[in-house]
């Protein structure tokens, strides 16, 4: 029985989840191994752990044709995580916690409501990060009041996590100051350190005409490149995408409010309309099983249902 089975994902996987294997190593893993199966039976598991990624919850969005359950989807996701038999070590929210608004008071209210909802999560450790909807209109001032720092690091069971802010600048840059901070942090890490970068926008040019890039993302990737074991998890594009820049794997997550079309697949980017025959299609969360010794990350996509 796999660890996922033990952790009760089958209960959720019945809702249509899929497994992707990702690795920061390029030896036949990463993109080449999507959909394959890894046998963990003989692997030592004492350092293994898993965490859950939720993204682009856009609390405050209203659009019945896009998501008629805009006020219920995040709550269902919280229930889904709480229903896992074995709880994750921690949870990350990779940005766009709230939907943007010009009204500062409404922005504060949305963040407060969001915190109340996710306060129902059983897991005590939750790491937040901002999206452009949360932070770009006031350079992250309201976000920081509600959630704390925009960029920071934390360590967990041998993995060094780096949260990179590429949204508080409305021009979608990380900026020189943060780049220097990142380089200084990386200097403290060994070349083979297990590094996971959490961010909102893609660090590579996924589709810049749709704002799916970070202006100075190449400089971030250059800084990470000397490290052998780096994996990036991000949001922003409201769909799964798996991409390699050299040996660095980049994995985007689904949204918990509305899906977006595949990059460049339609003339204008706009939310994919709600499919009444398949409610919550294209929405979801994911679990990430980390095997620090092998520098591998097993991704399982989990759908949200209105059950």
């Amino acid at each position: 029985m796999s660890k996922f089975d033990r952790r009760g994902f089958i209960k959720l996987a019945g809702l249509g989840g899929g497994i992707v294997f990702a690795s920061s190593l390029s030896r036949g893993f990463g993109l080449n191994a999507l959909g394959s199966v890894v046998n963990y039976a003989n692997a030592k598991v004492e350092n293994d752990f898993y965490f859950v990624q939720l993204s682009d919850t856009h609390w405050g969005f209203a659009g019945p044709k896009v998501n008629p359950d805009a006020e219920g989807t995040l709550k269902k996701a919280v229930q889904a995580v709480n229903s896992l038999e074995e709880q994750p070590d921690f949870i990350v929210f990779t940005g766009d916690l709230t939907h943007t608004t010009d009204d500062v008071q409404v922005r504060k209210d949305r963040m407060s409501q969001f915190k109340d909802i996710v306060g129902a999560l059983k897991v005590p450790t939750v790491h937040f990060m901002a999206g452009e909807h949360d932070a770009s209109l006031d350079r992250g001032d309201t976000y920081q009041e509600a959630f704390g720092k925009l960029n920071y690091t934390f360590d967990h069971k041998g993995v060094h996590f780096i949260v990179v802010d590429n949204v508080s600048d409305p021009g979608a840059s990380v900026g020189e100051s943060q780049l220097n901070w990142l380089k200084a942090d990386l200097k403290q890490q060994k070349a083979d350190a297990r590094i996971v970068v959490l961010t909102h926008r893609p660090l590579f040019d996924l589709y810049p005409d749709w704002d799916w890039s970070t202006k100075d993302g190449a400089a971030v990737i250059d800084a990470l490149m000397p490290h052998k074991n780096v994996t990036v998890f991000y949001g922003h594009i409201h769909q799964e995408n798996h991409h390699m820049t050299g040996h660095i794997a980049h994995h985007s997550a689904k949204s918990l409010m509305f899906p977006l079309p595949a990059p460049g697949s339609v003339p204008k980017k706009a939310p994919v309309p709600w499919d009444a025959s398949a409610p919550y299609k294209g929405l979801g969360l994911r679990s990430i099983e980390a095997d620090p010794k092998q520098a591998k990350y097993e991704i399982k996509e989990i759908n949200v249902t209105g059950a």
Partner: protein
Amino acid sequence: MNHKKRILLTGALLASAVVSGLLIYTKANAVPVERVIHITAKNFQFSPDSITLKKGEPVVFEISSGDRKHGFSLRAFGVRSDVLPGKASRIRLTPDKTGKFTFSCDVFCGDGHEEMTGTVIVTE
């Protein structure tokens, strides 16, 4: 013709020649006239949002904002500018290829930013 009149006549002829020469030089070296295309960014829209150009035709985009800070990015030609209220931004371009190209706002400006795009069509 006395000496004084001869000097005056020679001077007039020389001045005329200099002026004519300058006119010919200026005409030969004149900078092609650039067509100015005014674009307004407001309410999460560019107006106009479809612009037709001719390949090789030099143009100047003069972009102004009617509300807040925006950006104008035409990546296919490697040009961009911030667009600020009360100040026109100018981008010079001589398109060297034909086709349909997207321009977009690349400064997050609020709810509607994602759909703030337009098209440049370059014909032969």
